[in-house]
């Protein structure tokens, strides 16, 4: 674990740059994290990010693609367009959450 400076903020991150403290995140930080991986956030992006944040607070784990698709009502195909390549990881990264485990 280390400290990263993102914009004006200093935050705790893991070896891959995922935030480790839920409360250190804010929307401004989300925008900057997205920019780092080449994503400009639109309203649909925010719907997904806000769902992930709220869901994590309830369940204590990062939602899978399937869960996001069903619960936030965004088709999986659309998630791949919004967060190209590795949508589950990119969503979690921008939302300041641990990368989803799900896969064991």
């Amino acid at each position, binding site marked *: 674990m280390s400290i990263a400076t993102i914009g004006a903020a200093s935050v705790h991150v893991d070896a*891959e740059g995922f935030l480790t403290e839920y409360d250190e995140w804010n929307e401004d930080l989300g925008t900057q994290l997205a920019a780092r991986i080449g994503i400009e956030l639109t309203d649909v992006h925010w719907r997904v990010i806000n769902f992930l944040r709220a869901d994590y607070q309830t369940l204590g*784990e990062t939602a*899978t693609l399937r*869960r996001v698709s*069903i619960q936030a009502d965004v088709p999986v195909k659309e998630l791949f367009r919004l967060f190209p390549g*590795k949508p589950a990881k*990119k969503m979690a990264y921008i939302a300041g959450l641990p*990368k989803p485990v*799900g896969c*064991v």
Partner: protein
Amino acid sequence: MRRLLVLGAGTAGTMVANKLSRRLDRAAWQITVVDQDDEHVYQPGFLLLPFGVYQPDDLVKPRRSVIRGGVDLVRGEIDRVNPELNEVLLGDGRRLGYDYLIIATGTTPRPDQTPGMLGSQWRKSIFDFYSLDGATALAGALQEFDHGRLVVHVTDMPIKCPVAPLEFTFLAEAAFRARGMRDRVEITYVTPLPGAFTKPIASQQLGSMLDDRKIAVEPDFMVERIDPETKTLISYDEREVPFDLLVTVPLNMGADYIARSGLGDELNYVPVDKHTLQSMAHGNIFAIGDASNIPTSKSGSAAHFSVEIFTGNFLRHVQGLPMTGTFDGHTNCFIEAGDGRGMLIDFNYDTEPLPGSYPVPGLGPFGLLRESTRNHWGKLAFRWLYWHVLLPGRPLPLPAHMSMAGKHVPKPPDDPDNVMTKEQP
């Protein structure tokens, strides 16, 4: 009489009913198990059946024959659970009341969930092997397959026995070599994961075994649909993988009655406390084996180790005492590597599979995360243990909790999936 109702007489349901019937006071407890059919299938055999190691009859016994006398076995389809009334409604209208409910209806492959999978090519050039009829049909198809593209595919995680598709791939590669036709077959392993397996050290080892065998890997592939006309897998990000023979692991889901009863997550798995297996929503409901959402491999091994912990907890719980045992996610499994060799992995919630020896440090007899013929024979011998020790609920001399003794921790490989290092400008 206090009533314990177990839904599902598979590996976990049978073990738990048999164990508790040995420990609960028979005069004070009625134990009932419900299942929709009377065939208990040795599921680890599905992997070897397509290669002619087993015949279908070698893998099936009547459920009654593996459940202890004194346990009631009810045959029927489950329509729904009504947790407010503490009762289960069966499809034919029968109602079964309970004081404690154990959900053990596992997970099931669902080819209907991927468009095109059940189309014109199902069981012609598209096969699954996680069912007795699927594995049997695949045995015939493999016999006839003499050249072309074999694609082994996983739809999404989690799946039952997550190493089985890799084992199938190794075994098929070895079988093609033995038949002198390896050079006429292209093999591709298509996975939604970033690499061969879920955990980095084992993934690196298994990935290099795929490389050594000239098996291509198509990672991060989330299938959207299958086109049966062109025989192509198509992903959400529009990659295409053509096949002549597709061996797929369909989406795995818990039973539909769990959704109807409002007890499941989006894949119909029951959310439980991962250490006690108690439902997050209802104090008198537990989910064991593959039916729960615990973050460990869906496998008979995890079911076995968790049932060991669960049994002690349940006996305390019904006396009004706190549950003191905690399940650590312990799982181990033999991995067939082909050519009569196998590997063994042993892990839990916090510790990924590591090299070493098991169960005795330094001596084994089984080697962890390395190939040996002894591991292969261990896998074959396991069928006897399953019927005669595990299912009857007899003690197996292996600790339920994972041990670090005998394991070595190598330097972790670089994560191939690192968003930051790969894609940061």
